[in-house]
């Protein structure tokens, strides 16, 4: 066992844990001493503490990175849980296939994607990744293995999809891909000047466009509140099926001692970004990588937030109350101590999510990045919690580092059904926090 500073993407909270490498899907889960709890760890792209296990052990599953089978006729791929979405896409795109759901980064493992039941810009048509998982194998600490699918071991499937790694190790998964005719995305960019306009564009876009998302200028207040840029796109129906050369990441080798994300810089960025997209408004063809994963260009942009790290606040609220809640949160965020940076807005579809703890549900979801400014920020976010909870909404565990047990229980009423399926040798910092338990 070795002790290494594994961190989550927000780099807050910090946790100290030992790690053990899991490299072979045929091996048992490493056994833990009595009181020690372990947690499967993928690529550490969740923001808060669902991937951390302070004082315990992380089972580093990146070594489970083998493909098992790829049916090029039917578009079915089976691979180990530690394979990155990046590697799946690079393999399947040239054959005319695409992942049915992708998040905002391709540097996540398929196991992590399932454990957080991730969604993408096509949620309104495709649902979550869990909807496209044909089956997976769940390895438990008692060495039992279960092949889970929507039809067999369905209770384990429901507990493991979105189950935050708590039910065991996903040793492999089989995914139904979707056919594409080209690797480009035909993308349209539209500026909007208010939340009302956003909802209008979203409504008219959802039937004709597979991918929709909006960026909001979170520093805009008053008359400009809710201004932003709407992106909508479809897979190109013609053209080449190419992958880009091996991605060269620009890595921030170290954490800058000062915070680069400051209010004037964010304001400048937002203005330039709005101007750029205002100028280039219209229809363009772009490769899938810059369309889906624009931030991946900078390998560790999270470090720009300095040593204190960052928090992302992502919530969903039912459509009826969305205008009010989103407006109020944007207004409070813009005036807050911590300048909100990247802020995105998306309308979820009506498809019910496959997991007990899945986050997506009908309504509007918004994600706001904040530099960590300690207590004042925590108080601000708690005031957001009250708005979200009273509107019947929920926070996204994959992004969370601080919600209270009450907020969690309000947002995930079936959480108690999880308890039966949580592996007795597994726990996480997040799980202990939201269930208020010591193990």
């Amino acid at each position, binding site marked *: 066992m*070795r002790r*290494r500073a594994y961190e989550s993407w927000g780099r807050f909270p910090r946790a100290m844990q030992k790690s053990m*490498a899991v*490299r*072979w*899907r*045929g091996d048992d889960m490493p056994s833990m001493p009595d009181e020690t709890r372990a947690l499967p760890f993928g690529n550490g792209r969740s923001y808060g503490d669902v991937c951390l296990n302070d004082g315990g052990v992380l089972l580093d599953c990146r*070594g489970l990175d*083998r*493909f*098992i*089978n*790829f049916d090029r006729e039917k578009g079915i791929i089976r*691979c*180990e849980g530690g394979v990155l979405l990046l590697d799946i896409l690079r*393999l399947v795109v040239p054959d005319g296939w695409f992942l049915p759901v992708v998040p905002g980064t391709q540097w996540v493992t398929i196991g992590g994607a399932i454990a957080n039941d991730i969604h993408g810009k096509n949620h309104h048509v495709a649902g979550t990744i869990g909807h496209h998982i044909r089956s997976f194998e769940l390895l438990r600490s008692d060495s039992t293995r279960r092949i889970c699918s929507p039809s067999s071991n369905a209770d384990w499937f429901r507990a493991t999809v979105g189950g935050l790694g708590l039910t065991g190790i996903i040793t492999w998964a089989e995914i139904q891909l979707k056919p594409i005719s080209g690797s480009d995305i035909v993308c349209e960019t539209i500026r909007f000047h208010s939340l009302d306009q956003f909802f209008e564009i979203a409504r008219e876009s959802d039937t004709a466009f597979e991918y929709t998302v909006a960026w909001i200028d979170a520093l805009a207040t008053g008359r400009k509140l809710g201004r932003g840029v709407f992106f909508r796109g479809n897979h190109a129906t013609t053209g080449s099926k190419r992958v880009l050369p091996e991605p060269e990441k620009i890595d921030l080798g170290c954490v800058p001692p000062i915070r680069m994300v400051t209010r004037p810089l964010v304001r400048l960025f937002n203005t330039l970004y709005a101007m750029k997209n205002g100028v280039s408004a219209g229809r363009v063809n772009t490769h899938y990588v810059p369309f889906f994963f624009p931030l991946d260009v900078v390998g560790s942009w999270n470090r720009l937030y300095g040593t204190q790290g960052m928090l992302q606040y992502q919530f969903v609220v039912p459509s009826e109350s969305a205008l009010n809640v989103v407006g109020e949160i944007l207004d409070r965020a813009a005036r807050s101590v911590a300048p909100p940076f990247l802020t995105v807005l998306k309308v979820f579809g009506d498809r019910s999510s496959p997991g007990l703890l899945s986050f997506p549900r009908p309504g509007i979801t918004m994600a706001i990045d904040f530099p960590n400014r300690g207590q004042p920020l925590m108080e601000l976010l708690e005031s957001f919690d009250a708005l979200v909870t009273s509107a019947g909404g929920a926070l996204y565990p994959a992004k969370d580092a601080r919600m209270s047990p009450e907020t969690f229980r309000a947002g995930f009423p079936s959480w108690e059904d999880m308890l039966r399926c949580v592996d007795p040798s597994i726990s996480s910092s997040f799980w202990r926090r939201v269930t208020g338990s010591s193990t």
Partner: protein
Amino acid sequence: MKRILVFGATSAIVEATARLFAADGDSLFLVGRSKLRLESIAEDLRVRGAGKVAFAVLDATDFEMHEETIIEATTSLGGMDVALIGHGTLPDQQLANTDPDLVRRCLEVNATSTICLMTHLANYFEKTGAGTLAVISSVAGDRGRASNNLYGSAKAAISHYAQGLRCRLSRLGIRVVTIKPGFVDTPMTAHFKKGFLWATPAAVAKSTHRAIVTGRDIAYVPWFWRWIMLVIRIIPERIFKRLPL
């Protein structure tokens, strides 16, 4: 499309290197100790684009089986263009200092078995008149140090033997490639504290693949180890023996 025989296929460096050959469309014959693990690597390499992939289970210290395994591989591959030997273990030097039996076993795994395999493979290539014989040695073999003496001695033996083979075979157009990785973050070194000199198996694999394809004589991977080891080698012994290395 090359035909490649790989010993130590389940080692992190060798597996990562095999993926690069698979992406080239090459055919591979994998040799290792665990059937289950070899199976999962073979499946992976097929998906990644390898031509034919087959495997055989062999403990490298099972000397009687060396020749048979090579025959099985060349029959399965329909010949052989490249052989890569990469199996090995890292003994605990502290234990080895007081346990001559551990020393003997370690040399069998890391030196004797490798050199015997090289002997068979050199003769095979000599007969066919072409090919590349690559072996994964280590920078640890470049100079004896108190902290890693046994492992270093085994690696020194293979580097030395490979050097001699290179002299014997180069006239025939057969290449002998000695790969000398520095610190690599693999299961073998899981208990070490990692610093800035450490490389990933994928990075080491990239250099290893390139060295084999281009037929380099000796490849330090990553490249900067060549210069580090140059310095290490020229330090006079009367000073070197006092250094805490």
